[in-house]
C-alpha cells in the first residue's frame, strides 16, 4: 500500500536480509538452535517474567544476543545469583537495574536449550523490527485513514439523503397547496353542499353508533380490561430488572476472560464456593495477570452500541485504580477504588447464599437446569457468562423464580452428603425412586430466606 519508493525498497531489502540470515543460521545451527523448540521452552519457562519486545518483570530480551555473549547468557540462565554473588560486574549491574528481583535458576536447561531460546528471541526480535519499520507509514496510517473516510462518507451520505427528503417534502407541500387553491377557485358553495350531504351517509351512522349504550358499555369494558391488564403487567414486573445491563466503569469482558482465556469463575469470584457473597474480585486479583498483560492483543471487542473498545485503555484503568506505574512497576498511594455497578440486586430482606447452592447443591442444580458437564454450575442462574462481553442479569431474580426452582429441583445431592444421614425416611423414598424436591425438605419455608 505504501507508495513511498524508499520505504518500499527498505522493506524488501530488510526482508531479503532476514531471509538470508535465516538461511545462514538455519544451516549453521540446524541441530543446536531450533526457534520452534525455543518458543516452547520460552513460553514454558521465561514468559512469566520476560517478553521479547518490552520490559516486564525482567528486561526486554530483544537483542540480548547483541548485549551479552552467548556463554555468559548460558551461565546466567543456569544460576544468575551465583554470578551476582561472585561479583561479575555485568551481572551485578543487571541485577541492580531490575529492582534486585531474583531470576529463577534454570540448571536443567541444557546449553542447546538456551541456544534454541535465543534463536526464538532473535526471530521474534527481528519480527518486531520489521513491524516497526513497516508500521508507522503503512498499516496504522491506512487503518486510521480508512476509519475516517468511512465516517466522512457516511456523514455526507446522510446529509444527502436528508436534503433529498426536504426537497421531496417541499414538492409535496407545493402540490397540496396547489390543489387547495384550485378547489377554492372552483367555488365555496360546492363545499357547503358537500358538508351537508356527506355526514348523512357515514357520520350519522357513526354518531348513532357512538350513542348506542351497548357500544359505550362494551368500549368502556374493553378499555378497563385492557388498562387493567396493562397495569397488572406493569406492576407485576415492577422492580424486576431482568436483562439489566449497565455500563460498567471498566469495560470488562467476561467473554475474553472466561471464554477465550478459560479462566475459572472461582479464580476471581472466590467467595462463591465459600460464602454467601460470590464477591467481586479485588484489584490485586486482576494484577495477578495484568501485571504482565498490560495490553490487549486479542480479537477486537465491541460494546453494546457497536463502538470498538480499546482493551489496553481498559487495562490501564486497573493501574489507575491502584495507582500502579507499569514502567517502574511501583504502586503509589493515590488509589481510587473501582465503583462497579451492581447487576444482581436482591432486596435486603432476602438472604441468598452462593455456597449453599454452588457447593452443597451443585449436582442437583446441574441436573435441574440440564447443564453440560463442562459448563460451570454458575450458568444455571447467570447464563452463559463466557459468551457475554458485557454481563447482564440473566434471571428475573423474583421470588416466584426462586420458589419454582425449589419446587421442581430434585435433591440429587442428598444421598451423598452426610449431613442428611439421619433422615432415614427421605433416603428410603429416594431408594424407591421417588423424587424429593427442595420444597419437600422445607425449602419453601419463610425463614429459609427471610430473617
Amino acid at each position: 500500500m505504501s507508495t513511498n519508493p524508499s520505504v518500499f525498497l527498505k522493506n524488501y531489502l530488510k526482508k531479503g536480509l532476514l531471509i538470508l540470515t535465516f538461511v545462514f543460521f538455519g544451516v549453521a545451527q540446524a541441530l543446536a538452535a531450533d526457534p520452534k523448540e525455543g518458543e516452547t521452552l520460552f513460553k514454558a519457562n521465561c514468559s512469566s517474567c520476560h517478553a521479547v519486545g518490552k520490559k516486564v518483570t525482567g528486561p526486554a530480551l530483544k537483542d540480548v544476543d547483541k548485549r551479552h555473549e552467548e556463554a555468559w547468557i548460558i551461565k546466567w540462565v543456569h544460576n544468575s545469583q551465583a554470578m551476582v554473588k561472585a561479583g561479575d560486574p555485568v551481572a551485578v549491574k543487571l541485577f541492580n537495574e531490575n529492582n534486585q528481583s531474583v531470576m529463577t535458576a534454570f540448571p536443567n536447561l541444557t546449553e542447546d536449550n538456551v541456544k534454541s531460546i535465543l534463536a526464538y528471541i532473535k526471530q521474534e526480535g527481528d519480527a518486531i523490527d520489521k513491524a516497526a519499520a513497516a508500521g508507522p507509514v503503512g498499516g496504522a496510517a491506512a487503518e486510521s485513514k480508512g476509519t475516517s473516510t468511512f465516517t466522512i462518507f457516511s456523514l455526507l451520505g446522510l446529509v444527502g439523503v436528508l436534503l433529498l427528503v426536504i426537497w421531496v417534502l417541499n414538492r409535496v407541500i407545493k402540490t397540496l397547496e396547489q390543489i387547495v387553491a384550485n378547489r377554492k377557485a372552483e367555488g365555496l358553495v360546492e363545499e357547503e353542499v358537500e358538508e351537508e350531504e356527506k355526514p348523512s351517509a357515514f357520520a350519522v351512522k357513526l354518531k348513532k353508533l357512538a350513542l348506542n349504550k351497548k357500544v359505550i358499555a362494551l368500549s368502556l369494558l374493553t378499555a378497563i380490561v385492557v388498562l387493567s391488564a396493562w397495569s397488572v403487567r406493569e406492576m407485576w414486573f415492577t422492580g424486576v430488572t431482568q436483562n439489566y445491563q449497565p455500563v460498567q466503569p471498566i469495560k470488562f469482558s467476561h467473554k475474553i476472560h472466561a471464554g477465550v482465556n478459560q479462566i475459572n469463575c472461582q479464580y476471581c469470584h472466590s467467595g462463591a464456593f465459600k460464602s454467601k457473597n460470590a464477591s467481586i474480585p479485588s484489584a490485586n486479583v486482576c494484577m495477578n495477570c495484568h501485571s504482565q498483560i498490560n495490553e490487549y492483543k486479542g480479537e477486537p471487542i465491541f460494546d453494546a452500541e457497536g463502538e470498538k473498545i480499546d482493551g489496553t485503555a481498559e487495562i490501564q484503568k486497573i493501574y489507575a485504580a491502584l495507582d500502579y506505574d507499569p514502567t517502574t512497576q511501583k504502586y503509589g498511594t493515590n488509589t481510587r477504588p473501582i465503583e462497579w455497578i451492581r447487576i444482581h440486586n436482591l432486596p435486603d430482606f432476602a438472604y441468598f447464599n452462593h455456597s449453599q447452592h454452588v457447593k452443597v447443591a451443585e449436582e442437583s442444580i446441574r441436573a435441574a437446569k440440564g447443564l453440560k458437564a463442562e459448563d460451570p454450575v454458575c450458568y444455571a442462574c447467570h447464563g452463559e457468562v463466557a459468551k457475554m462481553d458485557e454481563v447482564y442479569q440473566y434471571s428475573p431474580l423474583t421470588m416466584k423464580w426462586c420458589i419454582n426452582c425449589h419446587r421442581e429441583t430434585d435433591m440429587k445431592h442428598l444421598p451423598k452428603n452426610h449431613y442428611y444421614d439421619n433422615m432415614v425416611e427421605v433416603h428410603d423414598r429416594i431408594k424407591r425412586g421417588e423424587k424429593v424436591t427442595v420444597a419437600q425438605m422445607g425449602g419453601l419455608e419463610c425463614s429459609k430466606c427471610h430473617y
Partner: protein
Amino acid sequence: MDSNNKKYWKGLEELNPTPAFEALQKREFAEDLPIEEILSGKAVESTVMPRRDFLKSLGFSVGAVALAACNTTPVTKAVPYLIKPEEITPGIPNYYTSASKDGYSILVKTREGRPIKIEGNPNCPVAHGGVDAAGQASVIDLYDSTKLQGPLLKGNESSWEEVDEFVKKELAKVSASGKKVVILSSTINSPSTNAVIADFIKAYPTAKQVTYEPVSYSGIINANKNSFDKAVLPSYKFENAEVIVSFGADFLGTWISPVEFTRAYVSNRNAKKLKKTKKMSRHIQFETELSLTGSNADVRIPVKPSQNGLAILGLYNNIAKLAGAQTFSASTPEFAGNIISKTANELWANKGKSLVVAGSNDVSVQILVNAINELLGNYGSTIDLDNVSLQNKGNDAEMIELVNEMNRGEVGAIFIYGVNPSYSYPKAADFSAAMKKVSLKVSFNERADETSKLADVIAPDHHFLEAWNDAEPKLGTFIIAQPTINHIYDTRAAQKGLLVWANNPIEYVDYIKNVWNTTIFPQVGVAALQDSWDNALRAGFVQAAPKTAQQYTHARELTQSVVSTILAGSKVDAGKLELTVYKHTNIGDGRGANNPLLQENPDPVSKVTWDNYIAIAPATAKEMGINEGDVLEVASTTYSTTLPVLIQPGQALGTASIALGYGRTDAGKCGNGVGKNAYPFVSIVNGTMQNYSSVTVKPNGDSYELAQTQTHHSIEGRDIVRETTLAEYAKNPAAGSQSHHEIANVAQRNAKGEEERYKEGNVKLFNIWEDKEKKGHHWGMAIDLNACTGCGSCIVSCSIENNVAVVGRDEVRRRREMHWLRIDRYYAEVEKGTEGYVEGAVEVIHQPMLCQHCDHAPCETVCPVLATMHSSEGLNQMAYNRCFGTRYCANNCPYKVRRFNWFNYADNEDFDYYMNNPMGKLVLNPDVTVRTRGVMEKCSMCVQRIQAGKLKAKMENRQLVDGDIKTACQQSCPANAIVFGDINDPASEVSKLLKNERTFYVLEELNVQPGIGYLTMVRNKEKAAHGHGEHAESHS
C-alpha cells in the same frame, strides 16, 4: 390439680390491685387508637381542613406517589477491595481473641473488618465463656460518633505532635520544680501497661501511680494485710462452697468478678448437679437493698446497714463458741427465728466447704469475716490467697491522700487514665477544686467528661477493641488483647503517650511483645518464640500452673478495737432513714452510663430502665405516707438531691437505697442527665469509702413515672413459674412440675382416643390445631430456673445479635420496649412461720421469657396474611415483608413476647441512640434484617445462626453435632442456664434436659405445645413458704 398454690406477683400493683390497674390489665395495649374520637367527629373537628386544601394535598400525594413509582430501579454500586486482606472473605465472619474491659478473654466477631459482636471465649480460665451485659454492650461504644475524634489541647483541636511537645515541655518544668507527677488510674492489671508506667516513673522520678476505684475493695485488701500480712484481694471459690453466707456482697451482680462467680455458684446448684447428687449449695443472704444476689438466695434476711456489722459479729461469736475461740461481749441482733445461730451451726457443720463474704468496705468488718472464715477452715478450699485476684486494686487511702496533696500544691502534673473522680469521688467538688492547683492536667479519657473537661490536654485512648493490650486478672493468668479494627478516630493508645513522653520511641505492640518474651513466657514456662506469641494470640491467654491454695492462720489476734469500731458504726442518727448506695448491675459505677443498650436493659430486680430511684420498702413507705412515683428530696448533711420513689418489696424496713452511676453530666448524649448522682452519699469512714449514709426524705410534691418493664404484662394468677424445695425434690424429683406430668399423661390418653380430662370440670386437652409430624431437626430450648440468676446479659446479647432497636425512656413508659427476650421477675411473700420470715421478706424467681415457638402457635392461627407460620423444624417464623401490622398475633400470644415496631428506629432522629447514625449502623448484624415501622417482630431462635450452622455442616459433608449452633442468649449466659438444640436428637443436651423430671412448660394446659421447657426452681430451704409438699404427693 394446682401444683403450686404460692401466690406470685410481678409488681405491687398486682398484689394490691387498684381498679385502674385491673381495668388496664384487661386490655391488650396500654393505649387505644382514637377510634371513638374519629367516629364522633371530634378528631375531624379538631383538625379542620378545608375541602380545597384536602383536594390539593390529595392531588399532591397522588402525584408524588406516581412520580416515585416512575423511578427507575436505583443504581447500586458494588465497590470491592483494591487489595483484599487475605483473611477476609466477604460474607464470612472472622473471630479474634481479645480481652474485655474486665480483663477476661473474649472472642470478637468481625464482618469485613468491623467488630459486630462480643462472645465469651469458652476456654477463658476466668469467665469460662460468660460475658456480662456491660461486656456485650461495649461493642457499640466503638462506633460512638460523639467521642473525641482527636487530641485536644487547652480545649482546642490539636495534633499529636503539638500535644507531645506541650506535655514534654510542661513535664520538664514540673520535674525541675520537684513537684509530684501522678498517674491517677483505675485498676490496671495489664503487665505491659504497668511496665510502661514503671518506665515513666523511672524517667520522671517524682512520679507515682494512684489507683482509684469509685467502688473499691480497700476494706478486704487491708483486712487481709491485717489478718495474714497479705494485702491482696483473694480468689473466691464458690464452686467448692456448700454453704454460702453473704452480708451485702452482690457477688452475682457487681461484686469483684460477677461473671466468674456466677459460673462457679451455679455449678453447685444447676440441673446437672441436682440430677447427679440430689444436693445443692445453700445460700443465705443478709442485705439491705434487694440485690441480684439476694434475689437468688435460698434464705434472704433484710438487714439495716447499721446492723450489718453487728450481724457479722453475732455470727462470729456463735462460731467462735462452737470452735472454742475468743468471743466478744456485745449485744448482737437476731433475725427471723434465730437465723444467725442457725447459720453458724450450718457453717460449722460444713467446715472447709463454706464461705462467708461481706460487701462492706470497712476494714474491721472484713477482719471479722476473715476470722470467721479462718475458724471455718475455708482458706485453701473456698478462699484462695495464693492465686489472688487482681481485678480491683482501688486504694481509698491513697486517693484521699492525693486530694490532700493536690490541695497543698505538691502535685505538679496529673494524668487521668480511665477514671472520673470529678463525678465519682464522694467529695467531687473538692477534687475539682484541687485539680485547679495542678499545673499540668492530662486525660486519656475518650471524651471531655466531668474530669477531663478540667484537663489541659485530652489525649483520647483507643477503644479496647482498637488496641493492643494484655491483662492479668488473676495472678498467673495472662490474657492478650489484639486490635480487631484499625482505630476509627485519631486516637492513640495511652501507653504510647506515656512512652513518648518518657522519650521511648518504641511502638506499644513491640513493647508488649518484649514484656511477654522477657517476663510472661518464662513465668508460664513457654519458650519466648514467635510461635508462642502466635499460639497465645490464637488461644487468647496463657496460664502458669496454678499454685496450691494454702491454709492460712491469722498473723495477729482479733482485738477489742475491731469490735468497738463495728459497734461505733452501728450508731444511728435518730429520725433519719438509713441509706445504702450500690453499684448498678448494668451501668456499673457510671462507666456504662452512655451506652443506650445498658440504659435500656432493665434493672434485674426493679425492672426500671433509664433512671435511678430511691427504693423504699412498702411498709416504710406506708408509714411515711409516700406513694410510688412521688419525688422525694433526699438530703444528707452535705448533699441533697431529688429522686422518684420506687416501692421495693424486700427492702429492709426503715432503709432506702439508691444506685450509683447515674446523674452524669458529661457522659455523652445517652447518659447525660439520666437519673441523679448518688456518689455524694458515699461516706468516708475509717479511711475507706463506705456505701451508707443517713438521710432525711420528704416529698417535694412532684410525681414522676419511672420507665418500668415490670408490670407491662400480667400473669393473671396463672401457674407460670414453679418451685419446690430441695427436700421435696430429693423425695420426688418431679415435685413442683406435677401438672406437666399430668398433662403429658392426659395428652397421651387423648392421643389414644380416650376422653381423659385435664383437671376436674375441664374438657379434655383442647386441640384446634393440626398436629404435625416432627421430622428432621426440631429446635427447642431448655431453661434451668435454678441456674438463671436474672443478670440480663442475654438481653443485651440478643439485642446486638438481632439488631433490636433501643426505644428510650418515653417509649418504655408506653410499653413499647422492643426486647425479644425479657426476664420476668416474680415476687412471693415469705409465709409467716416459715424459714427466713421477717416482715416484708420476699422470695424472687427470675424467668427468661421469649418466643416459645409453640408447635400449636396461637399467633399463627390469627394472622390474616400468613406473615407468621411454622417451619418444619419447629420454628415460629416471621416474614416481616408480609406483615402489615394488625397486631392480632400479639393479642393472641399467651406469653406476650411479640413486639410491634412503632417507628422506623433505624432512621429516625427522635431515636438518637446508635442505630440512626452512619457510624452506629456499622455494628448492625448484616445477616439479620433491620425491621421497619409497622411490623411485628420477636425471637427467631437466632435462625441466622441455625442456618449458618446447618450450612457449615453441609459444606463439611458431616452431620450436625450438638453444640454446633448456639443462640446468642445461650452463648453469653454466664450461668449456662439456657440450652438450645435439636429435640429430635436423643443425644443432645436439650433433649436430655427436657426429659428431666423437673421440666415443665409454661401454660401447657392450653395445649399450644411450646418449644421451650423450663426446669422447676429448687430452693434449698427447710420448707417451702406454701407447703405444697403433701399436696403434690397426693397426686403423684
